[in-house]
């Protein structure tokens, strides 16, 4: 009797352990295949992705699309853990800032075979857009939307204080002069808690990168080393220090307080800033929040070596661990090439990669979205290619923010903070 019960117990044990190990391999008995997709975003964006996945399921009744999503920070935390655990989703949203970390660690699938086989059609994608998804010559990402950054200008505020708003053609000296001029006018009008521009000194990517490129430098070289020197970092921080001394950017505590707030709670959306750096595709989101103000996008200032623009955007990738890469490729193709998907997605994360889809969505856009698209299309003409960052880009970004903060809080001088940053940065880049 006892032996029997012990035997039973061991059976239960074995079954429950086996239960732990059985992972979902994505196929069920009725021949239906299931793939998992994931993205970052807010409620409005989640709705769009869900609708697109529904449309895809309707068109492909034998494929089930499971969905995962989170806010920007949560998304990346979760993806890292999933990837390490070998259970990453099949189709993941990718961003250039993170792409190198994932691609260089060999976790993404080279999509070349699916492009050659025609499963993913990029024939309507401009070459620069296709190339922006390549890392070390391999196609790891397909663009959902491409965008460029610039300064959004609150024209109504400029009118109120009687200063001419900047145009597209200006350099960094003009930018500083303009910001100081605006701040003087704000002071003369007696506007409290209002600044000419936000503190962009912490923006390693993209604003510092724009600055470097317009000065003939790069953030990174092709072989993954630093493309700038300590002098460049000092010049950059000194420029912002000038603006800080003039009171044209918010104090450090205010900057930190607003560092992680949502778009609608940001200083710019509250009308407390005359200029602010954003990616072009977000212009209409601000326009929605600021119905009483007239907004306009202008290009980032240019430098002695010309334009800073490079292609940014949101992309889709397939993970190496995917058990159904062919179905995943089908989903990506549906997302970027079908009218059904683009009718829903429009310019949610930038201008569609395909020129054909660009023409398709254009007549369907509202005014704010139209402005976004116009800006992106205009500036893409200036856009060059930016080499992908090496592993450790996330760490470098943190270090850069630390340096900028210690200057902003007055804890260290520009020179000392820049030197400390360079030392750290070189050790991070060289240790990969």
């Amino acid at each position, binding site marked *: 009797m*006892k032996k029997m019960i*012990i035997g039973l*117990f061991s059976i239960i*044990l074995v079954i*429950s*352990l086996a239960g*732990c190990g059985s992972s979902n391999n994505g196929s069920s008995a009725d021949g239906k295949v299931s793939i998992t997709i994931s993205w970052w975003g807010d409620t409005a964006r989640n709705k769009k992705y869900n609708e697109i996945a529904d449309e895809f399921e309707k068109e492909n009744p034998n494929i089930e699309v499971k969905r995962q999503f989170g806010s920007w*920070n949560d998304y*990346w*935390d979760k993806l*890292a*853990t999933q*990837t*390490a655990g070998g259970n990453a989703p099949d189709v993941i949203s990718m961003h250039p800032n993170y792409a190198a*970390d*994932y691609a260089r*660690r*060999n*976790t993404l699938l080279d999509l070349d075979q699916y492009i050659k086989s025609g499963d993913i059609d990029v024939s309507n994608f401009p070459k620069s857009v296709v190339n922006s998804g390549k890392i070390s010559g391999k196609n790891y990402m397909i663009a959902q939307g491409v965008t460029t950054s610039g300064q959004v200008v609150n024209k109504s505020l400029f009118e109120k204080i009687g200063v001419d708003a900047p145009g597209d053609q200006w350099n960094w000296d003009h930018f500083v002069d303009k910001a100081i001029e605006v701040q003087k006018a704000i002071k003369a009008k007696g506007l409290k808690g209002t600044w000419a521009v936000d503190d962009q000194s912490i923006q390693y990517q993209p604003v510092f990168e724009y600055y470097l490129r317009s000065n003939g430098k790069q953030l990174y070289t092709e072989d993954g080393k630093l493309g700038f020197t300590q002098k460049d970092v000092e010049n950059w921080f000194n420029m912002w220090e000038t603006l800080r001394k003039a009171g044209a950017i918010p104090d*450090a*505590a*205010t*900057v*930190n*307080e607003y*560092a*992680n707030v949502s778009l609608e709670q940001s200083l710019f959306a509250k009308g407390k800033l005359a200029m602010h750096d954003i990616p072009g595709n977000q212009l209409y989101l601000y326009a929605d929040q600021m119905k009483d103000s007239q907004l306009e996008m202008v290009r980032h200032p240019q430098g002695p070596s010309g334009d800073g623009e490079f292609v940014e955007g949101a992309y889709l990738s397939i993970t190496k661990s995917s058990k159904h890469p062919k179905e995943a490729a089908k989903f990506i193709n549906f997302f970027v090439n079908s009218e059904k998907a683009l009718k829903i997605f429009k310019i949610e994360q930038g201008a569609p990669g395909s020129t054909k889809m660009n023409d398709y969505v254009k007549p369907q856009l509202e005014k704010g979205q139209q402005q976004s698209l116009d800006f992106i299309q205009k500036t893409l003409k200036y856009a060059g290619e930016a080499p992908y960052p090496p*592993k*450790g880009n*996330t*760490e470098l970004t*943190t270090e850069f*923010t*630390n340096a900028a*903060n*210690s200057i902003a*809080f007055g*804890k260290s001088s520009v020179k000392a903070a820049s030197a400390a940053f360079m030392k750290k940065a070189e050790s991070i880049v060289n240790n990969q």
Partner: protein
Amino acid sequence: MKSAWKRNWVGFFFLGPWLIGLIGFTTIPMLTSLYFSFTKYDMFTPPNWAGLANYIEIFHDPKFYSSVKVTAIYVLLSVPLQLIFALLVAVLLNRGIRAVRLYRAAYYVPSLFGGSVAVALLWRQVFDSEGLLNSVLGVFGISGHNWISTPSTSIYTLIILAIWQFGAPMVIFLAGLKQIPVDLYEAARIDGANKFQQFFKITLPMLTPIIFFNLIMEIIHAFQAFTPAYIVSGGTGGPLDSTLFYTLYLYQKGFTEFHMGYASALAWLLLVTIAIVTGLVFASSKKWVFYQE
């Protein structure tokens, strides 16, 4: 051995689920992290043996020292202050006032939310530049201050948050106070001892085992605090690393910078530190904890 198993198999049977949990979710992950702490591991590619490299690197890492400093300040201030506060409230509630249950529940509520995301978000609202505290100060004509976003004050907002969640030790203190025999107080009153003397000569010594227990629990708790700093600083430990708790730094290293080996080494240092501190408190207890027997 065989007979022992025969005698105890029912016990093991009932212990089974817990035992599986202990081995599967605690022991194995812990040993794995011990192994990782001696490797370079980025979570995507297999770990490479690195010997003591992570541990050596830690002691040359300025951010490690700043996180240790932040955590030390947090533990040294929040634990005693929270316990004193909890004891005071418990003594007040023990005086047989009316509606004591209501008060007890009301004071306990903040601890139920302890470490929750919602409370940390609420804290932001209270200490923001346009928050509740500054509005109240504004009534008295005091101009506001960015409590959370200024490096010199941000850690104290988190300490106040910890003190506010005094409910759990308070309930235990309350139970301890009820255990003290009433005749001790009677005898003291007859001898002419005032309330003050009664508190320091009877209540406090009789309560030392409970204080000891609460102290250990809260020290461990404080060392492991993570959520408040993560939420209040948006995961950065900022401004200027002023809320970079040790656990938060560990998390950043492991999950945002992909240095899982380094993060594992940090975790083991934390474990050892907590063990040493707890051991010291235990050793000292012989000198100040009195058991009635």
